[in-house]
């Protein structure tokens, strides 16, 4: 065990997996001497050389597609995208090719490919550099989707991703890179896909959160506890596969849930979670499952739109609020302050 940052945890796992298996290599923009814009490959070039730590041209379609080809041909590529927003430049390769190849080959291709990089708000980057991309990749069959919310999960999930024989979209969060926690250093430490993490147990309400909202939900749970309300906090960790059982049991126990994420509401991961849990846990629910999310604009480049702003006041204005009891209202008042 050692205390590590999220970025360090990622780098260490990449290095260990490259040591362990010659077929693992990494390619992407500015990942060699520069070590990646967020430092997740810093120093790897010194140990592994430019063949296995490859600087690519700014050609996202080309190198995502090349990742697929290399994977089909026996390598285990890790593709770093500088910003996951740039998946959009490579969408044909990711959705039409990478996600479908195994299926349309009748299961004959093995595609151990990881496409990883960071996303989200947090550095005053512009509208095209701070989005939450995960929902698109959940929609199409053929891709696994991981979203680690701390350094330990980053290490464990990434190792699972690299060892997985399927394409994995691995979403890091830029605001988490400097966050620290204890990480199991053993070279076989993995976190399985499809296993949600219950970070805090509770009986009155379930908060389901991803990425930076996991910690924020824990903070909210603390405040609720002071008011005598016991909140359970769950991080699904991977969206594909999704651990429905854990979340369903939780909601069956608490009767209420709020899904909190940085992505937009409409057709976001939260919509999927709310819909599925409504089917699975309908008879246990005391109120509708709510979503708390980023509003329908990306206006985050700068100054006034500091993060606290963008999630606020959502639940208090939703029509569903009427269905809540007074006690629920107290819960919501706290949850609404999640960003402040």
């Amino acid at each position: 065990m050692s205390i590590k940052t999220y970025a360090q945890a990622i780098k260490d796992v990449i290095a260990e997996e490259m040591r362990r298996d010659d077929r693992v290599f990494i390619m992407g923009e500015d990942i060699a001497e520069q070590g990646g814009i967020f430092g997740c490959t810093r120093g790897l070039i010194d140990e592994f050389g430019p063949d296995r730590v490859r600087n690519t041209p700014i050609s996202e379609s080309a190198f995502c597609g090349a990742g697929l080809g290399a994977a089909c041909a026996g390598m285990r590529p890790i593709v770093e995208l500088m910003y996951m927003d740039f998946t959009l430049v490579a969408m044909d390769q990711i959705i039409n090719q990478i996600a479908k190849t195994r299926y349309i080959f009748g299961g004959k291709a093995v595609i151990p490919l990881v496409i990883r990089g960071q996303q989200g708000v947090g550095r005053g980057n512009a509208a095209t550099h701070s989005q939450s991309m995960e929902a698109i990749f959940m929609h199409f069959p053929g891709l696994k989707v991981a979203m680690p919310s701390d350094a330990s999960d980053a290490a464990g999930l990434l190792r699972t991703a690299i060892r997985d024989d399927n394409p994995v979209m691995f979403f890091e969060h830029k605001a988490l890179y400097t966050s620290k926690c204890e990480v199991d250093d053993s070279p076989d430490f993995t976190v399985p896909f499809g296993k949600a993490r219950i970070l805090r147990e509770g009986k009155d309400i379930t908060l389901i959160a991803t990425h930076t909202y996991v910690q924020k939900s824990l903070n909210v749970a603390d405040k609720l506890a002071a008011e005598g309300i016991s909140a359970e906090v769950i991080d699904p960790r991977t969206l594909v596969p999704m651990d429905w059982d854990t979340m369903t049991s939780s909601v069956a126990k608490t009767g209420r849930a709020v899904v909190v994420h940085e992505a937009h509401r409409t057709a976001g991961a939260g919509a999927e979670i709310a819909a599925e849990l409504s089917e699975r846990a309908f008879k246990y629910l005391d109120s509708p499952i709510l979503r708390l999310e980023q509003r329908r604009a990306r206006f985050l480049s700068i100054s006034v739109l500091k993060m606290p702003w963008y999630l606020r006041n959502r639940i208090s204005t939703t029509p569903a609020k009427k269905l809540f009891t007074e006690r629920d209202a107290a819960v919501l008042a706290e949850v609404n302050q999640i960003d402040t």
Partner: protein
Amino acid sequence: MAGTKGVRLDRDKALQIYETMNDIRCFEEKALSLFEANKLRGSVHLCIGEEAIPATVCSFLDDSDYIASTHRGHGHCIAKGAGLDRAMAELMGKATGYCKGKGGSMHIADLERGNLGANAIVGGGVPIAVGAALASKMMHADLAEQGKMPVAVSFFGDGASNQGVVHESMNLASVWKLPVIFVCENNGYGISVPQWQSTSVKDISVRGAAYDMPHATADGNKVPDIFKAVSKAVDRARHGEGPTLLEFKTYRWLGHWTGDPCVYRTREEVEEWKKRCPIKFMRSYMTEKGFASDKELDEIEARAAAAADHAAEFALSSPEPDPALVLEDVFN
């Protein structure tokens, strides 16, 4: 839609370009100091050392012509006629900025003057310029005969030249004979990656041959060289003869973005290029030609510095956008 036939780099043109170069330089220096003082945030890409290209290229354009710019877009924006005050305000995300603070440095746009915007997606602006040229051809083909068709300039970097969409755009512009000038600002690096590591050719302009388009490489730090190449390309475009690919070799003095430690290049290399300062070069060129006295040139420089100071004051004292308006402008 000024015709370009016979446009010369005379005293007036030279003074105009010199002024623009100084405006850009002072604006960028001011933006850097505001960034360092933590008054301006976000990803900020400065074009100090590369000013000759936007200033010269845009001197051939007026408000009916279009440009599509890059993440390193302040120079293009200013050269296309934006005022420093509102440009700085946009960088700081203020309500008075060209995009009401919603664009920021990487998405500053000024449609009234034909600026289709900086673009934070490398290569993203190139097809947009092609589309503006398509509109020009569809609406103003009749002006081609007099050589007055509005044109579009697509600025992009050496790194961007490896994006598929850039190649698709060049092919399309050539097939449709569109009035586009593709201007590759080759500063030798895409962030940390040197050209030789990412790009199959030494002179990116030769790729024009693949799309059957005239192409040329010139020194991007020398206004007269840029001027000559652009003059021909714009003239051709205005006459409806189709696109040209121009490559201008230059260098960015500062890091890729503010705060880049620049581990991928040597100090000597930077110093070497600083000796080839485009502004200094232009100054001595103008003096030699007898275009302007030292006093006149000093005055231009002082005016630019004062304008940048003013822009900073304007931006600093401008209001923040009203948070209540955050959801405005998503749809019409």
